[in-house]
Every structure is written in structure tokens, then in C-alpha cells.
């Protein structure tokens, strides 16, 4: 049940999604990954990908144009 963070601030599509996919593969079931994003299209495709994989996803708007996507690995 560890928590990991991934800093994707300043990175444009599709880098945040590619890095999230890679990082999620390293996690064990039940772990949580917090991805920091400031690119609005990554804020769409990262949660979309994670939900399609069946993970639990929550999005928090931290500041103007800055989000934290919290992904809990379910399988």
C-alpha cells in the first residue's frame, strides 16, 4: 500500500501518459500513484487510460492549470 509520485509538470502530450503507463507497470496492486500534470490534454488522456485499465482514478485541481491525478492500482 505504498504511495508513489510522478512529476510531469512542464511536460506536454504524450509524455505524461507514456511515463504514467511505465510507472504503473512497476507498482504492485493496492499501491497509489499521484501524477502531477499541468497540461490540460494530459489531464484528459491519463485518467481516461487509467480508467480503461480498470484502476480507481481521482482528479484534483491543485491550482489554475495544475492537476493531481490519483491512481490506485487495482490489478
Amino acid at each position, binding site marked *: 500500500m505504498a504511495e508513489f509520485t510522478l512529476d510531469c*509538470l*512542464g*511536460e506536454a502530450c*504524450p*509524455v505524461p501518459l*507514456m*511515463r504514467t503507463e*511505465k510507472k504503473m507497470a512497476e507498482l504492485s496492486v493496492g499501491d497509489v500513484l499521484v501524477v502531477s500534470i*499541468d*497540461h*490540460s490534454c494530459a489531464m*484528459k488522456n491519463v485518467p481516461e487510460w487509467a480508467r480503461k485499465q480498470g484502476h480507481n482514478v481521482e482528479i484534483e485541481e491543485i*491550482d*489554475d*492549470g*495544475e492537476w493531481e491525478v490519483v491512481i490506485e492500482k487495482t490489478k
Partner: protein
Amino acid sequence: MNAFWLKITSNRFYKRLLKEPFTYVTGAVLLAVFAIAHLAVFSKGWGVTSAFADWGAWMYKLVGGNVDNWAYFSSEKAQKTLSGGFMNDGGSIRNLGIILGAFLATLFASEFKLKKIKSKKQIVAAALGGLLMGYGARLANGCNIGALFTSISSLSLSGWIFWLFLFGGAFIGSKLLAKYFM
């Protein structure tokens, strides 16, 4: 005052119209309507990058350069656009509108942010990518708008050929991205 803004930003119409992206269908319908309007106003299809070449020529003139003898600018039409200046060039005004509109959209959605540059690699990649895109757009006589969107909607075969090579370029680009940016 803060409560007022919180109330506005949680309003469903604000969210639907200004905060959340339009659906693909809404976007496609709007693009079709505006493309028709563009054709009606300018009597030619929508393109973006040709005006950028003129911007480059004007900037080059500012520092004392002369493009009159360049093959690209030698046609009468190109010369007329260049001598007419920025304010008389519909394409330039339209591009300015695209930039301003994109800026306003981020402001309305309250998503404006000055982003930090993460590494020197990003600077090199952005400069190199921009130059290649500009160069390619001039060789292909258009970008994904002029050579793809407008061509295909005018039933031109060239648009589909552009599309094939666009895929090839995107494939190579994403391989390079994975190799140097991951």
C-alpha cells in the same frame, strides 16, 4: 468575492461551455461550419502556415533582408501580399485570431499557467521540431490544416497522401520521443 467565483465555476453551463472540452462531434460540426464560412469570406480554403512564411519574410525585411528574388515569394500574388502588409493580409489576421482565441480559451477555463522548462532537452526538441514542422509545411504546401483538413474536405487526393505520410512521421516521431524523453 471568492464565494462568487466559486459559484460561477461550479455552474454547469460554465463547466459545459468554458471549462470542459467540446465533444469530438461538436468540434467537427463547428470546424465544418467555420470552414464553409472561411471559403465564403476568403474564396479559398483554410490554411495556417502560408501566412507564417509571410511573417518570416516581413521579419527578415525588418533586419534588412530582401526576399524579392526568392522563388517562393516571386509570384505576383506573393509580392502583393508582402507589399500590402500585415493588416491587409486576411490570413495573418486569422492566425492572430487563432492565437488570441486559444489564449482566451485557457483564461476562460481558468487554466492559464506559465510552465517551467524541465530540461535543456526540451528546448532543443522544441526548436528542432518547430523548424522541421515549418520546413515540412512549406515543402508539402500546407500543414495538417491546409494540406490535410482542407484538401480532404475538397475531395482532393493529395490530402489522403499527406495523411499517409503524416502517420509515417508521427510513428517515427513517437519512437524518437520514447527513446530520448522517457
